């Protein structure tokens, strides 16, 4: 039978093997979350490492109070991304360059189709959204979290997340419209 996560987290404070178990459970999710926010595999690796190192160092400060361990990890990853943007003084649209130069396309430039162009425009518009809206879309569509789970990660109610999602789609549509007219 699988060990309850709360016990595993408590054990991880003194047992490296238990921390390794938590790491294996969450590394793919954290990496994906960070990658979708930065658009770069190299930066995703760097920030994933920082996220887990920080989690290890501050594990003693984590207390189960209705917030799951994953929500705590997402907060650390989110802060790592925010600091990354601030420290590098990168604007969110810069990551488009990385997206535009994906390995596949640089090897076969003729394979850039209209659908791919549209996807690129969409990703560009998404990266121009405010950080919390980008976070919402990544948590919802790339991480597959429910509204209640997203609410716990972002410290909001389920209803607030639904409203934010609605506003995000409207803003995204507007940004896409602007891209077309530019």
């Amino acid at each position: 039978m699988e060990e309850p996560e709360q016990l595993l987290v408590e054990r991880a404070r003194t047992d490296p093997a238990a921390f390794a178990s938590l790491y294996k459970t969450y590394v793919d999710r954290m990496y994906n979350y960070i990658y979708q926010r930065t658009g770069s595999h190299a930066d995703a690796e760097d920030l994933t490492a920082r996220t887990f190192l920080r989690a290890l160092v501050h594990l003693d400060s984590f207390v189960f109070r209705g917030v799951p361990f994953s929500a705590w990890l997402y907060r650390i990853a989110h802060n790592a991304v925010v600091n990354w943007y601030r420290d590098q003084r990168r604007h969110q649209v810069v990551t488009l360059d990385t997206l535009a130069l994906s390995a596949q396309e640089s090897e076969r430039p003729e394979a850039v189709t209209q659908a791919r162009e549209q996807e690129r425009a969409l990703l560009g518009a998404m990266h121009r959204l405010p950080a919390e809206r980008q976070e919402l879309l990544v948590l919802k569509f790339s991480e597959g979290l429910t509204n209640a789970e997203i609410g716990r990660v972002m410290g909001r109610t389920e209803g607030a997340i639904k409203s934010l999602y609605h506003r995000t789609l409207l803003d995204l549509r507007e940004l896409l419209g602007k891209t077309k007219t530019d």
Partner: protein
Amino acid sequence: MRHEEVREALAAHADQLNTVNSLSAHSPPDRGGQDPELGALFQLAERVKFALAPARPSEDFTLKLLTDLTEVARQRMRRDILIGPPKPRAELIIGAAVALVGGIAYLIHSYTRAARQVGKSGQRAHTA
């Protein structure tokens, strides 16, 4: 359509998208009879879902990071064992010392006053 209805419809649609394993851009779900405004937002949500296909880290990276983290965790554990249980903080020691000195001063003061009173009453008795 009311704002709340749109909000709920979008949320339900997003949940539905997450339960579908693979989304094909060529076969969008049937939206017959829907509000065109809502239909356009559904379509946009589907494009976002498609664009945010999950990315996975390389196996080399995950293994190396696991090794590094395990080593850091072991070092921390060894250090905690060497340091032993947490020692009282300096502030607590200073506070306790101040309280002790204050207590002693109070006792000295009380005893001195009591001794003076005893002395005075002794003098009065003596002069009387």
